[in-house]
């Protein structure tokens, strides 16, 4: 009898091990959220590793082998992965994760999308007609992405529904508390706080309710910087700026995907002076030359920040990523 029980437990354990859901994501931000939502039921890997520009990844054959055994493939969408998603999926020969199948997810569905264009031309640079794809730097979008991932995991692993629901809600709760602080979340509820944030009236509403002093978290740290102007290298910080009330007044790239030119940088210097810009934000994979050029002629400070999980050794998950960004930007704009 004892042997039978041990054998059953071993078999159960083996079954659990075999049943691990294999998730492959394009970016490390997605991987971080997928790990939080999937918990112990999933094994997650990301195609983009280290500090790399997610626009310019090549479809390495090794990615095809990795996706070949995936139960779920998660991409941002909005054409962020337009150069390599399809070659990887086709090369993987994995019909479970083909576009339109239950094992494929564009995590941007339902997110707040900025820069959506109806009149598109490459004269405007390497633009994304369905909207700016750098959605994850808005914590609200991270919530939506987690909720989408929860739905996709339930599709491919219905037996894990309870785990995924619980983990997703825990992730949302953690985002909410990291964003506004526990006191406000407990007092007003998250729906109210996000609505006020989205309307740009968070501080006004909190003052009206005598709760401004209770604001903490990312929103609390960024609140003194609201209304300030920043410059970014690529148009990848507009979601962060939009959420925290900053204004991106110029990009070092004259157009998305086009390298900075001397003439354009001269105009950026003028903008930086006239708008009293204190911070130039860029990801670590861009050369600092252009930013240093502008910073050397203005009072702006260059902030080389992780734009994604994994861009720097400190940014090991979504929360640490946002912590680093918020701490750096709020300090620079103080």
């Amino acid at each position: 009898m004892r042997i039978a029980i041990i054998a059953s437990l071993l078999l159960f354990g083996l079954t659990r091990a075999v049943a691990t859901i294999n998730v492959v994501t394009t970016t490390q931000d997605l991987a971080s959220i997928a790990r939080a939502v999937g918990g112990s039921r999933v094994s997650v890997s990301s195609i983009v590793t280290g500090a790399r520009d997610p626009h310019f990844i090549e479809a390495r054959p090794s990615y095809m082998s990795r996706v070949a055994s995936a139960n779920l493939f998660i991409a941002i969408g909005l054409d962020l992965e337009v150069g390599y998603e399809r070659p990887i999926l086709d090369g993987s020969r994995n019909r479970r994760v083909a576009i339109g199948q239950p094992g494929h997810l564009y995590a941007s569905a339902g997110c707040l999308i900025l820069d959506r264009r109806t009149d598109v031309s490459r004269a405007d640079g390497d633009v994304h007609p369905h909207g700016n794809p750098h959605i994850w730097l808005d914590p609200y979008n991270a919530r939506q992405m987690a909720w989408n991932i929860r739905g996709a995991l339930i599709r491919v692993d219905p037996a894990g529904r309870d785990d995924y629901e619980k983990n997703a809600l825990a992730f949302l709760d953690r985002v909410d508390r990291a964003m506004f602080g526990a006191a406000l979340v407990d007092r007003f509820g998250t729906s109210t706080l996000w609505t006020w944030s989205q309307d740009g009236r968070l501080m006004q509403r909190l003052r009206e309710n005598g709760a401004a002093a209770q604001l903490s978290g990312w929103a609390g740290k960024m609140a003194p910087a609201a209304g300030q102007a920043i410059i970014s290298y690529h148009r990848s910080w507009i979601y962060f700026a939009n959420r925290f009330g900053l204004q991106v007044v110029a990009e070092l790239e004259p157009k998305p995907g086009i390298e900075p030119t001397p003439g354009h940088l001269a105009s950026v210097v003028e903008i930086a002076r006239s708008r009293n810009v204190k911070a130039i934000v860029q990801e670590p994979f861009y050369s600092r030359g252009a930013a240093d050029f502008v910073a050397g002629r203005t009072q702006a400070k260059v902030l080389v920040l992780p734009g994604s999980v994994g861009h720097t050794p400190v940014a090991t998950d979504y929360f640490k990523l946002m912590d680093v960004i918020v701490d750096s930007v709020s300090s620079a704009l103080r």
Partner: protein
Amino acid sequence: MTVPIQSIVAGAAMALSGATAEPPEPQDPQPSQPAKNVFNPQMSIVTDFRGILIDNHGEKEWKLNELEFGFAADVDPFLRAEAYISVHKSGHHHHEEGMEEGLDEYEIEIEEAFGVYSGLGGGWQVKLGKFAGAVGRIQRNHIDQLNFLDYPFVIQDLFGDHGLRAPGVHASYLFPGQQFLELTLEAVQAEDGPLFEHAKLDKPVWIGRLRTFFDFSEDLSAQLGGSILTGPRDEDRATVFGLDYTMKWQPGQKGQSAVFEAEAYWANSNEPGFSSTFGAFAALTYQVAPRVFLTGRFDYSELPGTSDVRRGFGGNVTYRLSEFQLLRLELMRITSNFDDPRTVLTFQFQYLIGAHPAHKY
């Protein structure tokens, strides 16, 4: 902004978990696509314009070298189709001797037009139609994906100016496991070329290829492939063995990369008097600035069925203003045992409109 079903689900889930978080409400539901364009294939046009600035054999000219039209779309849930149609100058021999004088007409060539089934399961993929044969890596690329002006001499001398592109059937198998290993088998009705002649449905050129891939690190990777071809050479048979190796250094920092690509081929035939031939190609491309690439290339090719040999040494500087256009200046020095040395300086202006190009390895 109302999401009653989601709220019900979320409410139940919160009851289960006891968490206080409320699920998100979709902020920006995807609008319905405009119906008039949604089923159109992805389209692109590559325009390749060249100027032969220096040529000691006297062929200086400006020319619209080629227009390549590309189309791709899903036919249905099972099949994806691609087609590449080239309009190029007749007598398209950039570095070859014997170009016909006064030939100034364009010809249309269907370079590729195939349907591919990638969802067969079990690691299989099947392609039907006209396609680039699974020979090496470089000749499967289109002109906008080359780091130099033309296909290596050995490819041109074995299979023709545009490489081996022929109607037939392709089946490839991706071995399971984390190590990439792909086996490809093809049977194609190759057009008559320098090596293969009179291929037919029941007497095709058979192609086998095995390729693997190594991620040495996040920055350094390599692909190693081996190809074997056997097919008719009139009443006889010809056989080719090929090896190809590509190594890429791609640190995350923008504006830094290096690519080494090399291919070698051995050809033989049981045709009386045919002595085995060898050809090889190697190129190193180094990105010196975000927009600027330097390439050095070496060619060696023994022409099949002859004792002729030609060598090429050259290099180019490529200025890529964006992903969609380039300006290139390439200098080639060509020597052979059948003609005087030739020096060619070519300017290339190439741009792409339409669908975003694929980032192939």
